[in-house]
């Protein structure tokens, strides 16, 4: 892809790359831990609510689809439609906070916390760091919704919409990997 075709801002892509490297490190740490204690990790995995994890995945993917739609609309000059799609992405995405809160609260009520064992340490830390990314993404979506209305140059508005979109898709992608790693992958 040529430089002029790169969506968003080049600096944002650097941020995304650096962030993905951090999560890659998380996954490596987790994998090494699981290789050392497969039984403990499997027991931890069995205590997670697969349906809530799946619901979270679907919520973020749906929200991401609206984000992508908003970008397509903006490229075609339909900023009113883009704003509506962003609002939908925000509303749908906010359900992730609700399901995550329910999941964490249930775990804590059952006496499972950050220091219960190594599996749950990683579970709470990784999903917590991801949740922080999610919250920032919510703020970004809010800012983008505001910018859709402002009288700014088309190229400038589009650049930031694409940059915000790239970030929001990263939040999706990281969750999908977390979901597979924590909820689905069984110890060998």
């Amino acid at each position, binding site marked *: 892809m040529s430089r002029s075709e790169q969506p968003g801002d*080049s600096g944002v892509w650097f*941020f995304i790359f650096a962030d993905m490297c951090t999560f890659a*490190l998380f996954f490596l740490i987790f994998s090494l831990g699981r290789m050392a204690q497969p039984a403990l990790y499997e027991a931890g995995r069995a205590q997670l609510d697969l349906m809530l994890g799946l619901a979270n995945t679907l919520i973020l993917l749906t929200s991401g689809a609206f984000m992508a739609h908003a970008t397509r609309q903006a490229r075609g000059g339909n900023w009113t439609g883009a704003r509506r799609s962003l609002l939908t992405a925000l509303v749908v995405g906010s359900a992730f906070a609700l399901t995550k809160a329910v999941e964490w609260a249930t775990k804590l009520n059952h006496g499972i916390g950050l220091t219960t064992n190594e599996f749950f*340490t990683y579970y709470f830390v990784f999903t917590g*760091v991801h949740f*922080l990314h999610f919250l920032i993404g919510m703020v970004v979506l809010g800012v983008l919704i505001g910018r859709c209305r402002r009288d700014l140059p088309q190229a400038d508005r589009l650049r930031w919409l694409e940059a915000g979109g790239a970030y929001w898709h990263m939040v999706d992608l990281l969750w999908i990997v977390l979901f597979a790693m924590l909820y689905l992958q069984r110890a060998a």
Partner: protein
Amino acid sequence: MQDKVDTRYWRFCLWMGPLFIAVFFVCWGILGDNFPPFAPDTPAAEVAGWFRGNAGSVRLGMVVAMTFAPAYGVWGYALAKILEQTIEKDSILVQLARVGAAWTTITVLVPTSFWLTAAFRPEALPDWAIQMLYDMAWLLIDLAYAVTSVQMFALGVGWLSDKRAVPLIPKWLSWYGIWVGFMFVAECIMPYFRNGAFARSGVLNFWIEFLIWMGWVPVLTLYAFRAVRRIEAQ
């Protein structure tokens, strides 16, 4: 016509950043044996025994580290001068970049004084007291991350609003600083762990966190020198 910017002393001040990192690494890291630190689950007797056996080098290391701590602030003020060339001088971002650098100096000075206290008369202190001073120093230097994040966010956001076709500081570096400031949040979980990746000596909360910050300083300084050349040529 725009007045020529007075850049006297800027380069000198910018050199203070890499100098601070070099001195901090040698004095605090090597002489103070903080690179890496004792794991939190190390017995108090072992930590105290090390302090008693190496009190001289720790004292020297911490005294020099404290002396050079303001170098970070001096460097930060020079960066804020470059920031003034991309946004309005009275922008709050310039003020935040300055206070972030100044506060970071304090968060280096205070914990180093705790390590120095532990090495001052370790033979007269019980093991637990030395361990407590050691823990206090580490908890403070790690958990005070947010003041440095203020500096990093202010510089990053300010430089990203540079309207030049080629910004004074590259966008990727501005984003890198924001990312590092954001990554520091991981220090919040450090007090909950006595071993592993998230402990103060762990791969994330020590190796990654310190190295991404210590690498940011010289790389940013390099680009800051280039920015000064461009400002002078304007």
